[in-house]
């Protein structure tokens, strides 16, 4: 009954007024940025990282996690009402959600995605609660070899699953690892790649890089194109779905929750892939696949549940293995590191209050989000009328003041602008910056465990193959390299199943 005792202690932490406030704040901000197209969860969390420096680590994690899963709720709103995904994980929701809205069922679509998200989110927290402790206990046995192998597999998956091209994803990983080597050597402590700049001897500040790549980079990419969005004009009538719609949605919500959770646990998996796979699955299982793309309830309920379940599931590798699986989780990883808390197998035993406080706050956050999203939907629709052009200055200002506040240094603001340019160029060249950020934060760990492993086994690479766990992990990593084809087949398969539905946007 460790779980129940832990959960009870967690609720005691989450129910303090301060933490309730941060949980509510996270849910509000998350919904808002989920609704607003052009500002994603990783960018928002990066922008808010400096604010969390001054609050307790548990509260910081509660706030940032709330933003992350809150965005999954908000993202569906724009997809349904505007045919524009509020964030990437809601792309498929456009296909049927917008059609439902055009048929006068916008309210039902919004309600089903909110309820689906709530059910999926809550089920996944149960999964997180039950699976994380044994997994962490297992990971405690890992030595340098296992850690290095696990990090290699995690980074390979992040590069593999990030964008359209595996080669480009892996280039981002290698580049991120390289950025991570700037500063002090993790074993000897001697400086390298500082180019005589004293400030670089501690390495690039992760938060500055992330704020530049995600914050400034996104603004730069957005100013060159003007997007005028027309909000769906009709009033939202009949917020509650009919009994028939509930019946149709029940199974997709259950399947989406399960599928999303397990995809979320995989590094590099996450909400986007989960929602796409759920859509394909529902269409495949449906007796009337021709209804998809024309306002099928299943095509909204399934993916919206899946992306929420995946968001929650992706906390498992962070909290048990210390491996962030996507860019948003990497930001939360960074927030913990800033507070001197090392996410990983030790977290559960050394800082149980963070783990259980977070788990309990997620239960509360999902309830808050359900309340925030259903009765207040009109308010969020109003928010949509704020054009991105007005939002951009606020993002820039927040990045500037946030970057400055870390070390009270104007040089840091300049660094962030430079990384903003880098982020813009990467986007222009078709690269996805998320794997770079992941690799940068994991680089020093990978290098340290790789070098330690080689020292232990006296320079013999067989050391990796003689340890069953390390060997299995490396074999999986090698398999990933050999199968870029599978991905192409899967993508084609997805569009085959989805059929000749117009792609969103």
């Amino acid at each position, binding site marked *: 009954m460790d779980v129940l005792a832990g959960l009870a202690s967690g609720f005691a932490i989450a129910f303090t007024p301060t933490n309730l406030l941060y949980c509510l704040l996270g849910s509000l901000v998350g919904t808002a940025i989920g609704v607003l197209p052009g500002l994603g969860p990783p960018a928002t969390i990066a922008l808010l990282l400096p604010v969390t420096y001054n609050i307790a680590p548990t509260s910081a994690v509660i706030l940032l996690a709330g933003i992350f899963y809150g965005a999954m709720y908000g993202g569906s709103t724009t997809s349904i009402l505007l045919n524009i995904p509020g964030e990437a994980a809601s792309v498929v929701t456009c296909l049927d959600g917008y059609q439902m809205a055009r048929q006068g069922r916008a309210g039902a679509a919004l309600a089903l995605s909110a309820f689906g998200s709530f059910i999926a989110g809550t089920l996944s927290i149960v999964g997180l609660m039950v699976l994380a402790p044994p997994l962490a206990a297992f990971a405690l046995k890992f030595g340098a070899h296992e850690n290095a192998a696990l990090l290699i597999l995690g980074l390979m998956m992040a590069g593999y699953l990030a964008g359209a091209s595996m080669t480009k994803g892996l280039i981002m990983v290698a580049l991120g690892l*390289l950025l991570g080597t700037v500063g002090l050597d993790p074993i000897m402590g001697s400086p390298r790649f500082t180019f005589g700049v004293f400030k670089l001897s501690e390495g690039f500040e992760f938060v500055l890089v992330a704020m530049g790549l995600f914050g400034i980079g996104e603004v730069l990419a957005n100013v*060159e194109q003007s997007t005028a969005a027309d909000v769906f004009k009709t009033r939202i009538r009949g917020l509650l779905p009919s009994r028939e719609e509930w019946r149709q949605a029940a199974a997709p919500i259950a399947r989406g929750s399960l599928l999303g959770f397990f995809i979320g646990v995989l590094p590099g998996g996450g909400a986007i892939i989960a929602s796409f796979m759920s859509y394909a699955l529902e269409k495949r299982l449906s007796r009337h696949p021709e209804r998809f793309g024309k306002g099928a309830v299943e095509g909204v309920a399934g993916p919206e549940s899946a992306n929420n379940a995946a968001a929650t599931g992706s906390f498992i590798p962070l909290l048990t293995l210390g491996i962030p699986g996507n860019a948003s989780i990497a930001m939360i990883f960074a927030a913990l590191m800033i507070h001197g808390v090392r996410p990983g197998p030790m977290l559960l035993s050394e800082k149980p209050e963070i783990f259980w406080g977070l788990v309990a706050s997620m239960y509360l956050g999902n309830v808050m989000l359900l309340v925030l999203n259903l009765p207040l939907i009109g308010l969020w629709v109003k928010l949509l009328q704020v054009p991105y052009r007005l939002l951009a200055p606020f993002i820039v200002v927040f990045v500037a003041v946030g970057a400055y506040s870390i070390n009270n240094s104007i040089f840091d603001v300049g660094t962030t*602008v430079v990384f903003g340019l880098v982020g813009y160029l990467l986007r222009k060249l078709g690269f996805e910056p998320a794997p770079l950020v992941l690799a940068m934060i994991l680089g020093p760990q990978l290098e340290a465990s790789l070098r330690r492993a080689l020292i232990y086994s006296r320079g013999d690479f067989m050391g990796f193959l003689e340890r069953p766990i390390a060997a299995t992990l490396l074999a999986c990593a090698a398999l990933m390299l050999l199968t870029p084809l599978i991905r192409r087949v899967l993508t084609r398969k997805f569009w085959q199943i989805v059929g000749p539905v117009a792609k969103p946007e």
Partner: protein
Amino acid sequence: MVRRDAIAAVATLALGAGAAVAASKLPFGGLRNPGPGFFPWWLGLVLLLLGAVLLGQALRNRASATGGAARPWKVVLLLAALAVYVLVLDAAGYAIATFLLVVFMLRGLEPHRWPLALTVAVVAAGGSYVLFAVWLGVPLPAGPLAR
């Protein structure tokens, strides 16, 4: 596509070569006792390899070329404005510099009306000042306003 990916591939190759050369100047150690140059040297090699793969893919898939930036001058202008902002931040102070930056973004880059631009600028500069300087106690550059 072909040009964009080819540029990306060449940039990757250059970065990989640069990393390998820079790493080779650090003590490499050996497999038994890898030194500071060991990991970055291998990364440089991996980048070279991936750059070559990407170049091969770019030359093989002669798919349709993608359009460039729709309004590239806006990106250049905004970057220039940000550079100026960083340079004058200390002298002008946070509030004034930020106010001017936001006014420029809304009035110079976008065709917003003066009243809207000025209002948003006051809210953005003032709000962030209150949040960070007053509430979080960050010593933001005060500039001439303090004197």
